C-alpha cells in the first residue's frame, strides 16, 4: 500500500490534534500561574479555543481522490471528510463541556479537569480517523483512560469515586475483549493496517480463511465496542456511571465517547469486514454476518433502553437509559451501511451524532443549573419549573423534544434519516422497530414536559436562579439544536453525505 508522504498533507491531517496538545499545555501553565480566584477563566479560555478549533477544523483541507492520498502518517490515520465531521462535533462537545463544568464548584477551579477533557478529546478525534489496529487501540485508550480519571475526579464524593472505579473496571474488561479480537485479526492476516490491498479487510475478503475463527474475532470486537457505546446487553454500567459522575462529566462521556465509538465502529466494520462492493474480487462477504448481528443488537438496545427508561425517577438515570435507546437508533444506521449504495447509513449516523451531542449536553446543562439551585435530581422535583424559571424550562423542553424526535428540533430530522437509511437498506423490520420505539420514548419525554409546566409544586414561589454564563451557553445550544433541525439541516446533511460517500472510496 502506498501512503501519502507529502509533508503538508501529513501536517494538516494531525493539525487539530497538535493544536489540542498546545491548548492543553497552555491550560496547565495558566492553571499553575494564576490565582485561585482567576482559575475559572481557564475554563473560558479552554472552551473558546475549542470552539474556535471546531470552526477552523471545518476549513482544514483533506486530500481528495484516492485512498492512498488520504492515508497519512504510514497509514495510521485516514484524513477524509468522515474524520472531519466527527472531529468537529467532538470539539463542539468538549467546548460545551468546559462551559457547563464552570458552575460546579468542585471542578471549575481545577485546571486538571480541562486538561483531561482535552486529552480525551485528542483520543476521540484520532479515533474518528484511525485506520490501523495500533492507532485504534491507542486512541481508544487515550479517550477511555482520561474519562476514567474524569469520572472519579471529585474525590471527596463517594459516588463519583465509585462510578469512576466501576467505569474503569468495566471499560478495561471490554478493552481486553477488543484487544484479543485485534490480536486474532493480526494473526489471520499479518497486517495491522485496515485499508489497502495488503490490509486486513481485503485479505479477509479474499476468503482464504475458515469462517469460524473470523466470527470469533468479530464477536470479540463487537462485544468490546458494544460496551463503549453501551449497547444492550453490555449497557448495565451506564445508569450507575451516569448517575454517580459529576454532571458535566456525564454529559461529556455520553456524547464524546459515544460519537467517537460510532465513528470507529462504522469505519472499522466497513473496512475490516467489507461488503462485496468494497472488496475487489471478493470471495467472502462477511457483512452478511455482521449486518444481522448489529440489527439484532439495535432492536434489543432501543427496546430495553426505552422500556426501562419509563420507570426511572432520577433524571440522570432516565437520560442514561434514553442514551442507551439513542445508541440503539444509531446502530440502525450502522446496520444499514453495508447495503446502502450512497453511504446513507454512515451519513445518517454522522448527522444523528451531531444532533445528539448538542441535545444531550443541553439537557445535562439544564440539569446542572437545576441541581445547583435545588440540590435535587428527582424528576418529580422539576414540577412547575415553567413558573419558577421559564427560560430553563424552555431550554429543557427543546432538549427533550429533540431527543423525542419532534420538529422543529434536530432530533426529528436525525431520526427521519436513520429510518430512511434502514428502509433503503431493505431492513424494513428494523425501521418499524425504530418507529415503534420512538413512540414509546415520546411518552417519557412528554411526561417530563408535563411535570415542568403543569404539575403543582410546594416551592412554586421560589425562583431558580440561572447564572448569566449558563443562560448564554444553554441559549446558544438550544438555538443550535433548533437551527440544526431547520435551516442548517441541509448543509450538515450534505456534509455528512459526502463523508459517508468517502468511506466507500
Amino acid at each position, binding site marked *: 500500500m502506498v501512503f501519502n508522504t507529502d509533508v503538508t498533507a501529513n501536517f494538516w491531517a494531525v493539525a487539530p490534534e497538535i493544536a489540542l496538545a498546545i491548548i492543553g499545555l497552555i491550560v496547565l501553565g495558566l492553571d499553575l500561574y494564576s490565582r485561585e480566584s482567576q482559575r475559572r477563566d481557564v475554563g473560558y479560555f479552554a472552551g473558546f479555543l475549542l470552539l474556535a478549533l471546531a470552526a477552523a477544523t471545518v476549513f482544514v483541507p483533506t486530500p481528495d481522490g484516492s485512498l492512498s492520498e488520504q492515508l497519512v502518517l504510514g497509514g495510521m490515520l485516514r484524513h477524509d471528510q468522515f474524520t472531519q465531521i466527527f472531529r468537529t462535533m467532538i470539539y463542539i462537545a468538549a467546548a460545551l463541556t468546559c462551559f457547563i463544568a464552570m458552575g460546579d464548584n468542585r471542578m471549575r477551579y481545577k485546571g486538571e479537569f480541562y*486538561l483531561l477533557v482535552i486529552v480525551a478529546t485528542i483520543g476521540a478525534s484520532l479515533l474518528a480517523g484511525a485506520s490501523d489496529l495500533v492507532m485504534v487501540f491507542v486512541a481508544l485508550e487515550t479517550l477511555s483512560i482520561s474519562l476514567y480519571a474524569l469520572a472519579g475526579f471529585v474525590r471527596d464524593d463517594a459516588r463519583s469515586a465509585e462510578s469512576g472505579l466501576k467505569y474503569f473496571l468495566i471499560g478495561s474488561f471490554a478493552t481486553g475483549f477488543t484487544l484479543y479480537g485485534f490480536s486474532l485479526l493480526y494473526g489471520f492476516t499479518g497486517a495491522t493496517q485496515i485499508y489497502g490491498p495488503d490490509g486486513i479487510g481485503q485479505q479477509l475478503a479474499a476468503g482464504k480463511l475458515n469462517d469460524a475463527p473470523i466470527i470469533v474475532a468479530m464477536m470479540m470486537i463487537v462485544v468490546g465496542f458494544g460496551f463503549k457505546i453501551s449497547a444492550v446487553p453490555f449497557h448495565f454500567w451506564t445508569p450507575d456511571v451516569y448517575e454517580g459522575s459529576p454532571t458535566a462529566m456525564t454529559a461529556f462521556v455520553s456524547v464524546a465517547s459515544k460519537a467517537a465509538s460510532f465513528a470507529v465502529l462504522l469505519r472499522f466494520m466497513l473496512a475490516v469486514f467489507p461488503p462485496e462492493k468494497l472488496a475487489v474480487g471478493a470471495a467472502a462477504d462477511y457483512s452478511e454476518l455482521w449486518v444481522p448481528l448489529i440489527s439484532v443488537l439495535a432492536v434489543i438496545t432501543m427496546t430495553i433502553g426505552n422500556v426501562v427508561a419509563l420507570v426511572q425517577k432520577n433524571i440522570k438515570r432516565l437520560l442514561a437509559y434514553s442514551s442507551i435507546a439513542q445508541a440503539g437508533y444509531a446502530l440502525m444506521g450502522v446496520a444499514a451501511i453495508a447495503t446502502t449504495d450512497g453511504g446513507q447509513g454512515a451519513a445518517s449516523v454522522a448527522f444523528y451524532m451531531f444532533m445528539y451531542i448538542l441535545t444531550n449536553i443541553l439537557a445535562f446543562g439544564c440539569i446542572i443549573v437545576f441541581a445547583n439551585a435545588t440540590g435535587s435530581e428527582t424528576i418529580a422535583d422539576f414540577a412547575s419549573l415553567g413558573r419558577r424559571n421559564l427560560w430553563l424550562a424552555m431550554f429543557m423542553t427543546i432538549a427533550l423534544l429533540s431527543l423525542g424526535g419532534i420538529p422543529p428540533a434536530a432530533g426529528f430530522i436525525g431520526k427521519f434519516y436513520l429510518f430512511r437509511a434502514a428502509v433503503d437498506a431493505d431492513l424494513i423490520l428494523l425501521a418499524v422497530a425504530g418507529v415503534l420505539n420512538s413512540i414509546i420514548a415520546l411518552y417519557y419525554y412528554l411526561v417530563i414536559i408535563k411535570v415542568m409546566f403543569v404539575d403543582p409544586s410546594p416551592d412554586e414561589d421560589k425562583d431558580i436562579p440561572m447564572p448569566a454564563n449558563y443562560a448564554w451557553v444553554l441559549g446558544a445550544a438550544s438555538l443550535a439544536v433548533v437551527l440544526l433541525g431547520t435551516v442548517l439541516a441541509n448543509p450538515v446533511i450534505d456534509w455528512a453525505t459526502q463523508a459517508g460517500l468517502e468511506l466507500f472510496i
Partner: protein
Amino acid sequence: MEFTYETVAFFIFALTTLGSGIMVVTDENLFHASLYLLFSLFGVSGLFVLLVAPFLAAVQVLVYMGAIGILIIFAIMLTRGMMKMDQVYNSQRVAAAVVAVLLFIALAVTLTPIVDELEFGEDLNAELAEDPVADVTYETVNELGKVITDRNGFVLPFEVASLLLTAAMIGAIVVAREDEA
C-alpha cells in the same frame, strides 16, 4: 512435537503462567494472589524468550513485574483493611466459571486444530504445522526503535502514547492525593 529442551522449557513456562494464573483468581489472600500474579507474568516473559522476543521479555520483567506488579502490591498494602476477606467471590461464581469454560472451548476449537474440521484456512494450516521461519534476527530492538520513530511507521501512536502517559499520571495524582486542608 519432539521432546527437546525447547519443548521442556515451553511446558515449564506455560504451566508457571497458567498455574499461577489460576491461583491469582482463586487465592483467598489478596497479597498471595498478587505474588502469584508476578509468577504468572514471569512465565509470560519466559514464553517471550522462547519466541525470540528478548526485548519484550525484558520489558515484561521491568514494566509488568517491576512497575505494574509493585503498584498493585502497593495498592493492596494501602488498602490493608480488606486484605483478609470473608467472601472471595461474588454471587455469580458458578456463572462466571461456566462463561469462562465455554469461552475457552470456543477459542480452543476455532483457533487450534483440535477438531479436524474447524481449523484456519488451508494457507494457514500449512504454516501452523510447519516450524517457524528459522532466520529470525535477534536484533529486533534496532528495528523496533526505527519503526516507532519513523514518520511512515508508528510515530503517531508513539506520540499519542506519551500524551496518554502524561494524562494518566496527572489523572492518577488528582484522583488519589489527599486534600490539602
